[in-house]
């Protein structure tokens, strides 16, 4: 028994060492974001000797960080909210009704899962420009809604089918209309699934690069990713500013992840394994 326990400890420590080495690039980004440029060149691996927050102040100003944050938060927040609302409502009807029409609609709604976003990007630019929505945030929002509809409806239909239909039938008998039934009875019950959807969508949309690049352009507002790409492109080898930018872009999402780890893990695994 004791031999096994010691073995377990050795294994744990080896795995931890691996994890720390794995995160070495993050250590580099953190320590070099608070060093003056000259120190990065001389001692890139060491802890900072002349600790400074000047890089952050400079990066904040030159990259217009506040605007980038605002744009990314608005786009991610609104796209996720719209997607959750539209897909959960559609999924509810598909999960509850029997019949060929609804089955066909379900299959039809899943067709988008395999399609790489670049297939829809090029034609969508034309559609958006015809609708006068190119280079606007609502345009990007609608593109995301179309892109992720399939994946999220798939999660929801599966989940809603596990909820007994007697619940909403009895609400209907009591005189609640379908909207009320859905929002006061079903929607609260599908919260775990909504959490999964929010985590997936939040990560995908917040970190997306190609689509905002061409749908928003720089005219329609830069997001964190396109803004950082643009800013860093301008001072390629000013590594102190690069790392400050990198930290400013990553810290919010890393903090969010670390504070809601359990939810992240459950969300990702329930989405991927059951799906």
């Amino acid at each position, binding site marked *: 028994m004791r031999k096994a326990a010691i073995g377990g400890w050795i294994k744990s420590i080896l795995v931890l060492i691996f*994890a720390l080495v794995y995160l070495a690039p993050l250590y580099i980004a953190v320590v070099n974001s608070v060093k003056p440029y000259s120190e990065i060149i001389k001692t890139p691996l060491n802890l900072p000797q002349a600790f400074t927050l000047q890089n952050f102040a400079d990066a904040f100003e030159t990259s217009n960080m506040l605007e980038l944050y605002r744009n990314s938060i608005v786009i991610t927040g609104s796209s996720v909210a719209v997607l959750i609302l539209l897909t959960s409502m559609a999924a509810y009807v598909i999960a509850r009704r029997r019949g060929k029409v609804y089955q066909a609609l379900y299959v039809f709604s899943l067709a988008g899962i395999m399609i790489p976003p670049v297939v829809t990007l090029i034609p969508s630019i034309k559609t958006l420009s015809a609708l006068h929505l190119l280079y606007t945030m609502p345009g990007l929002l609608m593109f995301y809604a179309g892109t992720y509809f399939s994946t999220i409806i798939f999660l929801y239909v599966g989940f809603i089918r596990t909820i007994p239909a007697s619940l909403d039938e009895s609400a209907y008998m009591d005189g609640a209309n379908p909207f009320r039934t859905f929002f006061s009875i079903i929607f609260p019950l599908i919260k775990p699934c909504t959490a999964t959807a929010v985590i997936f969508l939040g990560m995908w949309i917040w970190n997306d*690069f190609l689509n905002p690049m061409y749908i928003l352009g720089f005219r329609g507002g830069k997001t964190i990713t396109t803004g950082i790409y643009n800013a860093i492109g301008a001072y390629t080898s000013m*590594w102190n500013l690069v790392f400050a930018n990198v930290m400013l*872009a990553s810290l919010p999402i890393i903090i969010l992840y670390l504070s809601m780890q359990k939810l992240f893990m459950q969300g990702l695994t329930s989405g991927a394994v059951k799906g």
Partner: protein
Amino acid sequence: MKHSKLYDTLFLAPGFLIYLIFMIVPVVMCFLYSFTNWDGISVTYRIIGLKNFENLFRDASFYQAMQVTVIIMIVTTLIYNVLGIILATLLNDKGKLLGISRSAIFIPTVMSSVVVAFIWSYMVQTNGGVINSVIELLGGQTVDFYRTPTTTIFMISGIICWNSLGFFVVIYISTLSTIPQEIYEACMVDGAGWFQRFFHITLPLLAPGITINCILAVAGGLKQYDHVKVITGGGPGGATQTVTLFSVEKAFEYNRRGYSSAAVIILFLIIVILSVIQLSISKRHEVEY
């Protein structure tokens, strides 16, 4: 249920309308464009049949892009799954240290690919890059990761893996946790060693996880854009371009939307075919217990 039809429509219509306009219609348009010489700006264009596809197969830069994409796909799929399974078996246990390691390995997964690519472009620099500094400290020979396009692609594949490995590990851990402990216990009573347990129990019962991870890894590998765009921009001279980079450039910089659409359609068909093949293989290998 009298109002049922009306309410059903109200629930379904908004979502399906957007899905129709921004998914189904664009896919159809993409197919149609691939048979035209549309430039993305003009109002008129001609239908030129399969000419775009013919030209693509004669285009050396498309072959190059295809090759790059396939290398990235194979390398990342191998690393994700081999390293993913090893790490998951090591991490799938109780204990504080393992818990910390689990959350640490997942951190890069939540980071944006653009940011990751910038951090790593510093790490892999030939002069003054962190990896080479460490190699020098240990008394080794400096490595030039950009020596040839092939070495550059391998390097970028590694960076892509660093970015998303955590996701694949999490999927494997959750599949492992569905394997009943009694099977292992019975096996240990019969005197099976670690390797026998791993190859005769763990691996076959991991099949559902392997299927999901392989499909995700293959599709993800074929779609690569972000890391390559930031690290090399596809250069030198298009030598590290992926198919997605190739088509985006053709569509928006050379205004050859028809040609670009044809390339995208080929990519799409490859993804569908590979996914179907993987699904049918895995159906045969999944074990009931």
